[in-house]
Every structure is written in structure tokens, then in C-alpha cells.
């Protein structure tokens, strides 16, 4: 894969997100009193989803639409996450739920969206090794919890902080995927990372949060990317490390004492997320042998017959699968 192709796969989606945000937010007409200020625009989840789908298409070519391989279904997952998150902005839906639950309508619509995305993933993402009931339950849990906990933070925290947190988690996941040998996934997650960076910068310049709808979309897509990275990885890295970057984002949802101040609190959260992501990446580097550690497979062959002792001619010295 040439640097140009990698750049196209990661930067084009970011440009897509930036354009969508500029058009939908119209930051040159700042209206802080806008009711959708914290809720978020319909365009951002759609743009992030379209960006990820574009990146996957650029990596896999037309074959991505065949859905022949299970990871091809990530395009469906992206469409579901983006579409459902964008649908939460439908005025009639928000109005109806606001009447149903006065004062809690927006929370209700966003939580329902998170539940809907989680169940849709459960029935569309049949990744290798995830056929067992426990694994499917895990996928449900991994999508549902971040999506339900991250949208309030994305609608409240300064845009630069939330966007930067999503960027760090996506960058870490991308690095883990590339060390796991799945470069196409790694590059496509890189597209999510650059989209998050674009959203963070624009949100900071427009002095507004990234938005709750984007919080759901980013969380759901990163959950799907995490599930795919873990499913195809055979480095032996424990699943907990794969989930660490996404789980670290939950720090955004933890309230800090007011003594820290808004900026101090954000910086502390970002630092903690960076450490957690760094730990996950380092664990992957160790498991995959990126530090030069011999793998178990290398060591298994001499240990079958003792150090320095040649195997008998004709013996099958290959380690069992």
C-alpha cells in the first residue's frame, strides 16, 4: 500500500467530515442559543459513517459491497451507526418523546438510538469467534455501554477535548490493528481518527461541543472497529487490551470535582485516556513481537526435542495448531 493510497484513505474522509460540519454548523452564524447546540447536528454522524465507508471501499475495492467476508459488514455497521445517530435529530421524533417524557425527551431518544445500534450490530456483525452466546452478549455490551455513556459527555465537554479523546482512541486502535497484521482495518480506523481530529478542531474553532449524536456514532463505530480488530487478531493479546482504548473514553463521562476547573478536568481526562491507550498499544506491540521478542511458535520447535538436539528424520516437528 503506497503512502498516497493510505493518505487518500485517511484524509479524504476527514475532508468529508470537515465539509459536512462546516455546512451543517455554519459556524460563521454562531447561535449559542440554538436548541441543537449540545444535541449535535445530523450531518456529523452521517459524515463520519460515510468517511469510514469510503475508507473501507478505498481499501477493499468493489469487493467490499459483496459482503462475502465477515469484516465487509463493517460498512453496514457504519451505515447503521451513522443513520440511527442522525435519525435522532428528527424533529417529530424528539418532539414526540419530549411530550412523552417532559424534560427527558432528548435523553430518551439518544438512549433508544444506542440500544437500537447495539442490537443491530448483534445481528449484522458475525465476526470470527463471535458466534458463541457469550461473545454476542459481549458485543452488545461493548457497543451499548460506551454509546449510552459517551453522548452526554460529547454534548457537554469542550469540542476539542471530546474530539481529541476519540482521535486518541481511534489512533491507538489503528496502531493495534496494524501490529495485528490487518492493515486494511488499521487504515480505515485511521480515517475515523482523522475525522475525529477534524471534528475536534472545527468544534474548538466554533466554540461548541462535538455533539451528542456524534458521541453515539463515534462510540458505536469504534466499538465495531474494536470487535473486528480483536476477531482477526491472532497475536494472543488478551481481549481486555483490545477494549481498553474504547473503555478509556468512559473517563469522559466521569464527573470531576469543580476544583479542577473545566480546562484542568479536560486535560486530566485526556492524559488518563492517553495513558490507557498507550498501555493497550504497548501490550499489542509486546504480544505481536514488535519489540523483537521471539514468539511462542519460534520457541516451541526446539523445546519439543530439547535444546540443541536435532529432531529425528521424518518427524513432524511442527507445533500443533
Amino acid at each position, binding site marked *: 500500500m*503506497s503512502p498516497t493510497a493510505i493518505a487518500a484513505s485517511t484524509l479524504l474522509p476527514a475532508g468529508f467530515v470537515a465539509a459536512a460540519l462546516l455546512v451543517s454548523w455554519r459556524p460563521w452564524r454562531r447561535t449559542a442559543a440554538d436548541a441543537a447546540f449540545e444535541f449535535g447536528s445530523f450531518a456529523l454522524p452521517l459524515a463520519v459513517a460515510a468517511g469510514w465507508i469510503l475508507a473501507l471501499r478505498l481499501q477493499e475495492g468493489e469487493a467490499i459491497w459483496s459482503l462475502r467476508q465477515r469484516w465487509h459488514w463493517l460498512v453496514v455497521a457504519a451505515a447503521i451507526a451513522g443513520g440511527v445517530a442522525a435519525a435522532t435529530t428528527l424533529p417529530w421524533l424528539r418532539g414526540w418523546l419530549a411530550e412523552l417524557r417532559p424534560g427527558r425527551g432528548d435523553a430518551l431518544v439518544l438512549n433508544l438510538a444506542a440500544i437500537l445500534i447495539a442490537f443491530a450490530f448483534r445481528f449484522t456483525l458475525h465476526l470470527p469467534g463471535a458466534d458463541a452466546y457469550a461473545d454476542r452478549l459481549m458485543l452488545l455490551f461493548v457497543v451499548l455501554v460506551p454509546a449510552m455513556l459517551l453522548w452526554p459527555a460529547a454534548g457537554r465537554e469542550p469540542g476539542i477535548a471530546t474530539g481529541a479523546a476519540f482521535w486518541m482512541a481511534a489512533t491507538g486502535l489503528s496502531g493495534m490493528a496494524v501490529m495485528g497484521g490487518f492493515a486494511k482495518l488499521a487504515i480505515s480506523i485511521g480515517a475515523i481518527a482523522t475525522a475525529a481530529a477534524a471534528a475536534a478542531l472545527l468544534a474548538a474553532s466554533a466554540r461548541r461541543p462535538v455533539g451528542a449524536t456524534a458521541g453515539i456514532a463515534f462510540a458505536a463505530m469504534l466499538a465495531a472497529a474494536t470487535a473486528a480488530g480483536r476477531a482477526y487478531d491472532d497475536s494472543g493479546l488478551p481481549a481486555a487490551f483490545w477494549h481498553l482504548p474504547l473503555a478509556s473514553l468512559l473517563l469522559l463521562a466521569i464527573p470531576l470535582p469543580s476544583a479542577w476547573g473545566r480546562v484542568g478536568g479536560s486535560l486530566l481526562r485526556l492524559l488518563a485516556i492517553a495513558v490507557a491507550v498507550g498501555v493497550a498499544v504497548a501490550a499489542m506491540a509486546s504480544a505481536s513481537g514488535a519489540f523483537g521478542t521471539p514468539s511462542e511458535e519460534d520457541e516451541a520447535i526446539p523445546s519439543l526435542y530439547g535444546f540443541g538436539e536435532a529432531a529425528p528424520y521424518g518427524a513432524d516437528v*511442527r507445533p500443533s495448531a
Partner: protein
Amino acid sequence: MRLRPLLLAAAAAPLLALAFTAPPENAAASLPADAEGRFNVDTVHSMAMFRVQHLGAGQFWGRFNDVKGTIEYRPDAGEKALSFDISIDTASVDSGHDGLDRHLRSPDFFNSKEFPAMTFKSVSASPAGNGMWKVEGDMTMLGVTKRIAAEVEFTGAKTMRDRRCGFEAVFTIKRSEFGMNWGVENGSLGDSVRVIVGLEGIAN
């Protein structure tokens, strides 16, 4: 002096006789009796190697260590006289480098977790002389099945402890036709892959 034509005729007679009694091509290509029957592939002494051009420069070689299946030779079965049913464990890919092996097992290439085996089932075989056969069959990789033709050489048959026979198949595929496209578009890795499969069968 009259004896000379007779001597010439006498000398030529065996050659003429040999010419008229020479076996037809099919019979000449038939395999020895030791090769008849059904054989299980000896997984230790069989392997598949592949060759692909890297960065438009060198030819990169890799191999699969786990090859299994059956070989069957039935001289009276017409175009199915020689048949192969071979399965290669994609996770056994071995480039001599752990990191590269991991990449080859990933969905960028063989997607071993979803497609643990690639298979070849022959549909016809015709002798091509000098122990060579042209074998056509269906190769399945990454869930895609394509008809391919392989040149197969009969390498020998012998009974020592077991009755064994050997074949070596050579064929070329375009990997993008099977959905394996990493590096094809920008030419960093060749599309054409030359495959050599060395098989040793043990009689059932």
C-alpha cells in the same frame, strides 16, 4: 552381394516391429502399477510453495506447511483416471518471518480465521506425455471458486514400508480474481502468483 539387402532388411525388421507395436500415447503416459489406487496425502512430505513479485523487483517465496487430501489413480476411468482432492491449511502459511506470516493470515490476504482452508478438486486429467498430465479443477480460496489448469508431473512411485506415489503440480493464478487484492492496484505486490505443490501419497 545378394545377401546385403537381406542383412539390411533383417537389421531393420526389429525397428519396424518396434515402431508398429509401440504403445499409444495414453498408454505411454499411464502410471506404474505402484501408483494405482487411492492415496492419502502424506502431510509431512507434502507442501505448497508460492511465488509473487514484490515491489516490481524480486520474486518473493512462501510456503504452506499443512497440505492434506487424497490422490486417486484409476487407469480405466477415462478423463478422471487421475484425480486430486487437496486442502491447504491457510494458517500454515510460512514466509520465514512472524510478522509477515501474521499479515498473510489476516483478511488482507488469506483471512485464515474465516477461510481456514483453500481447496482444489480436479474435474479432469489428460496425459501430456513424459509423465506429465494436464489437470483441470476447481480451486476455492476466500470463498471464491475458479476453474484452473495445472501441469502435473508424476514424480515416482515405490513400495517401501508403504506404497507411495508422488506428484508435483505447477500453476499460476491471478489472486485478485479470488478477492485478494492487497498491493495489486499500486503494483507493490504482483497479481500473478505461481504455485508449486509437491505431493506424496500413501496408499490406503
